[in-house]
C-alpha cells in the first residue's frame, strides 16, 4: 500500500463533481451550510466512483476531508530550506532524474565510439538543456584545457594563422539558435520498428543557442584563396581527429566557430572549448574540439565521408557527401513507451525542423494518415532550428495512430517511409526523415509502429 504523504505523487481530486447549477449558485450566493452539504456529498459520490479498483484507498482518502497534500502541511512549508548557492552550478530537482542521456543497449560494443540519446519525450520548447545534449564520439571525449587549445587555419590561404581561445573570444561574436541532428538519427527504423521510444528513435537531435565567431571572419583574416579555395576541411583534436569536408560557399554562409552553448561554455562532451557549428548539416560536420581548418580545391573523402555517412542506393552505388538534414518532424507527447492516463483532452506536441530553412507548416493526423489537421507553431520559428508544434486532441478511448508531417519554406513535404524507400531502397542507414507513427492502444499505451 502506498503512503501518499511520503510518495510525493499527486492524487487528483475527482474533477467535475459539482453539478453546473450548484456551481452557479455557489458563485452567485456564496457557500451556505446547505450548499456546503451538497458540495460535500457530490465530492464523496464522485470520489467513490473513482475509487473502484486498486486505487480505492488513495481516492477515498482524498474524498474524506480533502486532499492530504493540501490538508497536511508539508515539511517544506514548516522548515528552513537550503541556503542560496548550496548547488553553486545548479542541478535539476531530484524528482527529475528519470530524464537522462541514454545509450541504446547493444547498438555499439564500445562506449567511446557510441552515442547517448537526448530524452526528447520529456523536454519542453525548443532548447535542449546542455546536460542532455546528445553525445556521439568516435574515440572518446576529453576535457581539454582551453589555455592549451589552438585553432590553426592553413592550406590555400595567404597567411596561415594560429588562434588561441583568448584571440577568438576577443572577436565580435554571434549567437544563433540551431538544431544539430546526427545523419544516423532514426537510422534503426529504416528497416522495421526497432526501438520503443522517441529518445532512441529521434534522440540524436538537440537544439541550442550557439555563440562564436563566423568562420568567414577568420577565413578573410587569413586571406583565403577566393579563386581556388573551393572546400574546407575541419579537423578535431581528439584521438580520432574527426575530419569533414565542407563546401566553401557553406563555410562562408552561416558556419560558426563556436565556444558558447546556451549561455555557458560548450560542455566537454560537445566539444569544449571549440567546435564548428554548421547549420542544417548533419552533426558529424560540426567538428568538436576543433583544432584546424584547411582550405583546399578538392574534397578530402575522409573516413567518415567515404565509409560512413554515405547513402547506399538500390543499384549498389553510394551517395557521398549527403549532408543536408531534410525537413522532418516527430510527436514527442504522446509518444512510444508512454501511457495515457485517461480519456479526454490532450495536447499533442512535438518538434519540426529543416536543414534547408524554416518550418512553414506542421500537420497532425490521429487516424494513421487518412485525415490531417494543421498544428499551431510556437514561436520563435527560426531557420535551421527546432520548431515546437501543438494541437488539441480529445481521445475517445479508441485505438488510433498519431503522425506529424512537416513542410518547410521550400515547399518540401516530409515523406512517408515507403516514399523514401521507393527512391533509396532498404539498405540505407542515414538520413531517414520519414513520418513517424505512434499507435495508441485501448489501454492508453503508446507504441512505435510503421504504417503506410
Amino acid at each position, binding site marked *: 500500500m502506498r503512503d501518499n504523504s511520503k510518495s510525493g505523487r499527486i*492524487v487528483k481530486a475527482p474533477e467535475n463533481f459539482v453539478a453546473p447549477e450548484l456551481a452557479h449558485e455557489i458563485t452567485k450566493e456564496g457557500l451556505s451550510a446547505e450548499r456546503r452539504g451538497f458540495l460535500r456529498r457530490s465530492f464523496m459520490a464522485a470520489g467513490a466512483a*473513482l*475509487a*473502484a*479498483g486498486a*486505487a480505492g484507498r*488513495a481516492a477515498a482518502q482524498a474524498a474524506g476531508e480533502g486532499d492530504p497534500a493540501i490538508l497536511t502541511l508539508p515539511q517544506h512549508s514548516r522548515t528552513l530550506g537550503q541556503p542560496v548557492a548550496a548547488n553553486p552550478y545548479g542541478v535539476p530537482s531530484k*524528482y527529475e*532524474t*528519470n530524464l537522462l542521456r*541514454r545509450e541504446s543497449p547493444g547498438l555499439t*560494443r*564500445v562506449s567511446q565510439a557510441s552515442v547517448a540519446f537526448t530524452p526528447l519525450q*520529456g523536454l519542453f520548447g525548443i532548447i535542449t538543456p546542455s546536460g542532455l545534449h546528445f553525445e556521439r564520439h568516435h574515440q572518446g571525449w576529453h576535457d581539454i584545457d582551453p589555455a592549451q587549445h589552438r585553432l590553426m587555419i*592553413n592550406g590555400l590561404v595567404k597567411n*596561415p*594563422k*594560429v588562434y588561441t581561445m583568448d584571440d577568438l573570444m576577443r572577436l565580435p561574436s554571434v549567437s544563433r539558435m540551431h538544431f544539430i541532428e546526427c545523419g544516423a538519427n532514426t537510422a534503426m527504423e529504416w528497416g522495421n520498428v526497432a526501438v*520503443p521510444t522517441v529518445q532512441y528513435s529521434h534522440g540524436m537531435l538537440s537544439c541550442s543557442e550557439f555563440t562564436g565567431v563566423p568562420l568567414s571572419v577568420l577565413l578573410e*583574416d587569413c586571406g583565403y584563396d577566393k579563386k581556388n579555395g573551393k572546400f574546407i576541411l575541419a*579537423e578535431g583534436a581528439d*584521438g580520432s581527429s574527426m575530419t569533414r569536408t565542407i*563546401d566553401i560557399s557553406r563555410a562562408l*554562409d552561416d558556419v560558426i566557430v563556436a565556444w558558447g552553448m546556451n549561455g555557458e561554455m560548450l560542455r566537454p562532451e560537445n566539444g569544449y572549448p571549440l567546435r564548428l557549428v554548421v547549420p542544417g548539416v548533419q552533426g558529424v560536420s560540426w567538428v568538436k574540439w576543433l583544432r584546424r581548418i*584547411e582550405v583546399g580545391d*578538392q574534397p*578530402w*573523402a*575522409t573516413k567518415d565521408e*567515404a*565509409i560512413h555517412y*554515405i547513402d547506399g542506393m538500390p543499384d*549498389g552505388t*553510394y*551517395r557521398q557527401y*549527403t*549532408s*543536408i538534414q531534410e525537413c522532418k518532424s516527430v510527436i514527442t507527447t504522446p509518444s512510444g513507451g*508512454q*501511457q495515457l492516463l*485517461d*480519456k479526454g483532452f490532450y495536447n499533442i506536441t512535438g518538434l519540426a525542423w529543416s536543414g534547408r530553412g524554416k518550418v512553414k*507548416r506542421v*500537420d497532425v493526423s490521429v487516424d*494513421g494518415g*487518412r485525415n*490531417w489537421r494543421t498544428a499551431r507553431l510556437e514561436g520563435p520559428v527560426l531557420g535551421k532550428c527546432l520548431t515546437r508544434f501543438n494541437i488539441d486532441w480529445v481521445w475517445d*478511448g479508441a485505438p488510433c495512430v498519431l503522425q506529424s508531417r512537416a513542410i518547410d519554406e521550400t515547399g*518540401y513535404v*516530409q*515523406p*512517408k517511409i515507403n516514399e523514401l524507400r521507393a527512391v533509396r531502397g532498404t539498405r540505407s542507414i542515414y*538520413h531517414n526523415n520519414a513520418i513517424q507513427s505512434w499507435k495508441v*492502444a*485501448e*489501454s492508453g*499505451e503508446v507504441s512505435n*509502429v*510503421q*504504417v503506410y
Partner: protein
Amino acid sequence: MSRFTKLLFALAFVAGAAQAQTLVNVGRPATAREIAAWDIDVRPDFKGLPKGSGTVSAGMAVWEGKCASCHGTFGESNEVFTPIIGGTTAEDIKTGRVAALANNRQPQRTTMMKVATVSTLWDYVNRAMPWTAPKSLSTDEVYSVVAYILNMAEVVPDDFTLSDKNIAEVQKRMPNRNGMTNAHGMWDVKGKPDVKSVACMKDCPPTDLRSTLPDVSRNAHGNVAEQNRGFGAVRGVDTTKPAATAPLAGRGVAAAAPVARPAAAPAAAPAKNNALALAQQNACLGCHGLKDKVVGPGFAQIAAKYKGDAKAGAALAAKIKAGGSGVWGPVPMPPQAQLKDADLQALAGWILNGAK
C-alpha cells in the same frame, strides 16, 4: 592643405582600410613546423601523403600486435567494430564496382566493399589508429598496415611493397573505386530533394500497420517507466510487465499512473566501484566480459585461472600495461600504456577478485 598633408591623409586612409580587413593583433602566423605537425590529411589525389613505404609482411606483424584484437586476425571480425575485409571479388577489382552492394549477397557491408579511395585508408590509419593509441604508428608502419589490409582484400599480392610512388597505381585496383556518386541534391542547401511527397489533407489513401516493436524487445531498453517523468499528461510504460489489454475506462485514473517515484535507470547508474569505472573508461569491456569471453577472456575466467597465485597481482598489472599474447589464444591484447600504476593495481586486484 599642402600636397604633403594630402599624401599623409591618403596614406592614413589606405592604412585604415587595410586594418579593417585584418584582425590586428588577433592570432599570429603559423610557423612551417607547426603546420607540418598538424597538417596530416591525405587527399584522394594523394596531396599530403608523406614519402615512405611498407611491405605486406611488415604490415602483418603490426596488425597482429595492434589491430587484430579489435578487427580480427583477417580483418573480418564483427566483435568490436564492423568488419574491414570481405565481400569483394577479383571481378570487382576489374570493374571498380562491388557487385555484392547491388545483389546483397554479403550479410554485412565491409569497409573494403565501400571505400573508393586508398587515401582514405591511409589517412584514417595514420590519424586515428591504433584505437587506444592514435597517431602512434610511424609513417612506414602506416604504409605496411595499409598494404596488409589491401593484401587481405586481394588487391595486392603477398610480396607487395606499398609506397608513395606506387599508391596511385593501387588506387586503380580499388574494388569500389567507381561506386561513389556526388550527383544528388543533398550536399547543397539549395540542392533538389530526391523524394517528393504531397500533403494530402482529407480522405487520403488507406494505410496499413506494417511493423510493430517485437514483444521480445519490449524491455530491451530497460524499464521505460523510469525514463519518463512521473507526473504530467502521460506516464512511462512499465515495460517489465506485459502490455495491458483492457481499455482505460473502468481502470481508474490512479491505476493508470504506475510510477510513484523516479528512479535512476540502470544504464546511467554510477559505476558500482572504481575498478569497474576504470574498466569502462579504458574500453576494457569492449574485449572482455565480466564473466565470459568476448574477444579476450572474461574477468572471472582470469580470476579462476590465477586463484591462489600470490604473484598474480603484480604480473597481471604488468601485463595490462605492456599487452601480451598467446595465453588465451592467438589474438594479442594491445598495451594499455595510458594507465597509471595505481589504476593498474586497482584493476588487477579487482579482476583477480572475480570482477565483482
